[in-house]
């Protein structure tokens, strides 16, 4: 089985468990299966097996005696009896290639395995023990790595004296430091992992930690590194052979055959140069192909989603499918649209109207719907809160409005987004570009990684303006300063010349906001802009957003999972669950008279709602994966008020009891919306 793509971004524990169970189902078999999926790898393995047969049986499978000279039949072109022809002494080229295979195979296996074996303890000890020993060992390794490998190999092989054994020794010496570095780096990486620290803290012996904790994790990178080194070893041996340092004539090696052909047949029979060279190249190609495939297969099976606790679906998909996506054609910068019908624009048109939006991801396991028939609107000057747990589809929805989801895997399957009456999904790349950042802006969740580390704050601010307005440098600079002032960054003049890494997270988010507002957009989409910040900074950021919203009469879509923030800043709220809107209305209505059990759960889970001393309420269960949305009401497995009908009937979004008739619209997706008496906040 393969790793289940996990868009929910839930607790890392669950994810690790998935990996653990996946591992227990014969990891070796899965690895082999993954390796054999590509035709190139299969061909490479087949070729290597062929060469292995030649290497093992040598003269036994050669059609002729490889060293038998036959002057009468010298320089024969390929024929039935001599498939690859004969050389200038009449020796059968195919037979010589077969015998020469033994040298290449032997050298590549011997040097790489020996070098790996020597490097392993050096790297392990150096990485794990560290300190002075590490310093000394790595100095030596660095000094050896400074040598151009071929030059060192030639010098060592030459001084030791001609011969295959000495060449093998020379290549091994050249390879050791690289492997040692690799092992050390992988050791350092796992050394700090909690499971190693845990072992240490309960007093496990160092030797046992090294062999049972570190080694298994160092193994894969070393295997990959070694498999990629086989090709290099072949190339080096053939090169030294070509220079006359390895196998001595008349015995054949691929390198000295090439040399012989070059010296004696270059002008007269140049076709003789093709066979030995092609065999060397194919051998290296086969090794490299296998090494690459091994690396891909191993890295895919070892992907463990532990680090990113607050990864958003957009990113989760990204990480999960990064290596698959790389195989595919990705249209960046504009999400693909495959809708068939275009829903009509509402009349009168609000600033933004999302109409029946459905989004799908194309994955290895097929098509997955992640947003399902979502409609909402934002009026001019209004702040709409888009609320839900991670995995509910709120971030993907906002990225789709900007058309920033990469295609593939993302696809707009149905619906339309009308911005000031214009259908955004009908726009061309350049038309969309003109709107983005100018009339429609977005601030993202993670300020630490959302600014380009290579350019100054000032540059990134000015760029936002100059992409949309033709202004001279001085004006752009003045506006940039002005914007930093507006988002209350102290000493803006100085900040303009600073790089993102010199600013704190809160400052960076203010800069992101300044960039988004540079062209005075009509609508700002703020995707959890405060989630990654400290609590005190969060409050400042919210105050700033609120005051700017009023000052600039900005419309805002505020994406968040924090209902406290919604109560603080929003006029209306739309609650999303499993890709659908389950309730929407004014903040006052929804908060005091929620009609959907999920909303009630969210409200109850707010720390502000609970009484001091009470245990904080938690909605039982987890957000289902988009691939596993339950039938009927999608919330029913977690709902306390579930009845049989909830499990089977399709539930649509309807006007709530005090909905259409009431003073403000209030839509609910619940079969029992009229009959339940749900608790709101306060």
């Amino acid at each position, binding site marked *: 089985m393969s790793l289940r793509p996990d868009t929910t971004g839930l607790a890392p524990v669950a994810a690790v468990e998935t990996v653990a169970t996946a591992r227990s189902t014969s990891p070796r078999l899965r690895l082999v299966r993954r390796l054999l999926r590509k035709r190139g790898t299969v061909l490479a393995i087949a070729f290597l097996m062929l060469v292995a047969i030649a290497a093992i049986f040598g003269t036994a499978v050669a059609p002729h005696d490889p060293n038998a000279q036959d002057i009468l039949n010298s320089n024969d072109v390929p024929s039935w009896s001599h498939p690859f022809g004969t050389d200038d002494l009449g020796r059968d080229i195919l037979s010589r290639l077969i015998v020469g295979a033994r040298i290449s195979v032997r050298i590549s296996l011997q040097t790489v395995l020996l070098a790996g074996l020597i490097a392993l303890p050096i790297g392990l000890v150096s990485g794990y023990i560290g300190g002075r020993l590490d310093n000394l060992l790595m*100095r*030596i390794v*660095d*000094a050896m790595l*400074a*040598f*151009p*490998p*071929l*030059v*060192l190999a*030639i*010098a*060592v092989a*030459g*001084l*030791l*004296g001609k011969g295959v054994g000495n060449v093998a020794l020379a290549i091994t010496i050249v390879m050791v430091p690289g492997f040692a570095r690799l092992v050390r780096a992988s050791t350092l990486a796992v050394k700090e992992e909690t499971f190693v620290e845990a072992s240490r803290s309960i007093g496990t012996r160092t030797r046992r930690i090294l062999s049972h904790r570190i080694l298994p994790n160092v193994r894969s990178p070393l295997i990959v590194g070694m498999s990629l080194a086989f*090709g290099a070893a072949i190339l080096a041996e*053939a090169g030294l052979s*070509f*220079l*006359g340092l390895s196998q001595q004539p008349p015995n054949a090696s691929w390198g000295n055959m*090439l040399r012989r052909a*070059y010296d004696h047949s*270059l002008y007269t029979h*140049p076709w003789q*140069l093709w066979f030995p*060279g092609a065999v*060397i*190249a194919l051998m*290296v*190609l086969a090794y*490299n192909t296998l090494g690459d495939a091994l690396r891909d297969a191993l890295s895919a099976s070892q992907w463990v989603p532990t680090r990113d606790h607050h990864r958003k679906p957009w990113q989760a998909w990204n990480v999960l499918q990064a290596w698959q*996506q*790389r*195989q595919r*054609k*990705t249209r*960046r*910068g504009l999400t693909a649209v495959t809708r068939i019908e275009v829903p009509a624009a509402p009349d009168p048109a609000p600033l933004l109207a999302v109409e029946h939006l459905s989004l799908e991801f194309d994955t290895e396991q097929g098509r997955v719907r992640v947003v399902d028939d979502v409609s909402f609107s934002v009026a001019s000057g209004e702040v709409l809160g888009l609320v839900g747990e991670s995995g509910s589809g709120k971030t993907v929805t906002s990225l789709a409005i900007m058309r920033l989801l990469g295609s593939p895997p993302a696809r707009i399957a149905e619906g339309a987004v009308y911005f000031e009456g214009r259908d955004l999904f009908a726009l061309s790349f350049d038309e969309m*570009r003109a709107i*983005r*950042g100018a009339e429609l*802006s977005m601030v*993202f969740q993670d300020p630490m*990684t*959302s*600014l*380009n*580390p*290579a*350019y100054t704050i000032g540059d990134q601010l000015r*760029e*936002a303006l100059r*992409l*949309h307005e033709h202004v001279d440098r001085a004006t752009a600079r003045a506006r940039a300063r002005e914007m930093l002032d507006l988002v209350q960054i102290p000493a803006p003049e100085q900040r303009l010349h600073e*790089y993102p*890494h010199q600013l704190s997270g809160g400052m960076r988010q203010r800069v992101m906001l300044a*960039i988004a507002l540079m062209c005075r957009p009509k609508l700002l989409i703020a995707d959890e802009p405060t989630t990654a910040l400290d609590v005190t900074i969060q409050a400042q950021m919210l105050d700033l957003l609120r005051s700017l919203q009023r000052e600039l009469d900005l419309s805002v879509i505020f994406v968040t999972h924090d209902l406290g923030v919604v109560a603080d800043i929003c006029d209306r709220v739309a609650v999303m669950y499993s890709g659908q809107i389950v309730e929407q209305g004014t903040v006052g209505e929804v908060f005091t008279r929620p009609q959907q059990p999920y909303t009630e759960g969210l409200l109850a889970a707010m720390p502000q709602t609970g009484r001091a001393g009470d245990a904080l309420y938690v909605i039982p269960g987890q957000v289902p994966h988009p691939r596993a949305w339950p039938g009927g009401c999608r919330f029913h497995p977690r709902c306390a008020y579930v009845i049989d009908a909830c499990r089977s009937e399709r539930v649509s979004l309807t006007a709530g009891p005090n909905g259409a008739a009431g003073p403000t619209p209030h839509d609910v997706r619940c079969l029992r919306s009229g009959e339940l008496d749900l608790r709101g906040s306060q």
Partner: protein
Amino acid sequence: MGTLIARRLLALVPLLVLVSFFVFILIALVPGDASVTLAGGENATPERIAEVREELHLDESIFQQYGRWLGGAVQGDLGDSLFARTAVTSDIAERLPITLGLAGAALFVGLLVGVPLGVLSAMRPAGAIDKLSRFGTTLGISIPGYWLAIILVVLFAVDLRLLPPSGYVPFFENPLRWLEHIALPAIALGTWSAASLSRQLRAALIDVLDTNYVRSAWAKGGSTRLIVVKHALKNAAIPVVTILALQTGYLIGSTVIVEEIFTIPGMGPYFLRAVVSFDVPVIQGVVLIFVLAALILSTLADITYGFLNPKVRVS
């Protein structure tokens, strides 16, 4: 920036000591009694053996020998060739520019082909260009440079007679003729550079194009060109520059065989002749120069790294 450069140069000192020691103790690899082997093996006359022993101070301890050799090397004296009796330093001074010229030309080919190929591949992973270029670059890193050199000779020199099959004309004597002679070897060497550079750049660019700050640049309304050329390329160049320096160090080493094939009178043939005849002072001198070249390149890469990465520069 100044302190960064100073720090890098200072860090070179201990490395240079170690590296030079390794270069020197290459002599310890010589099998049997070094003075006999170096004097010509079994046929060596006792006088010659004594001469070699005397000249290389083989009676002293290895550290004394190293000190003597290093002392000379620092002053630009790498000893004399055991056979030609010429000074190694002046021999190298004559040949090094030729080799550097070839390596420079090869690097030029590598950059000229590798950078655009890498960028175009990364912009549309698995697109037509990417598929073609990945096929080409996979071949490019697998084909031995010396074989490619020979094939180029067969095609362009023997069959088409467009370019000379071997030989060399100094640049300052006739730049055009120089180019004629250097073209095939530079392509033979540069193909590998181009292939590996384009693969590295592609991988780095694809990673960078997936970052949040690139998404921010799209959200601003940036064009594809702005995203790739401004936002992505500078960040992707950071890892690639380091690798490029390393590869160029290797490239200089790879000139050895290619010079031999094209009979270019650079470091390669000089080195190979010395290796076959156990001319230890020449071998030590040449290896030392090659290592120094590689070290200078990696130091330059570190400094460039500082220019590209403000985190290193400012702190």
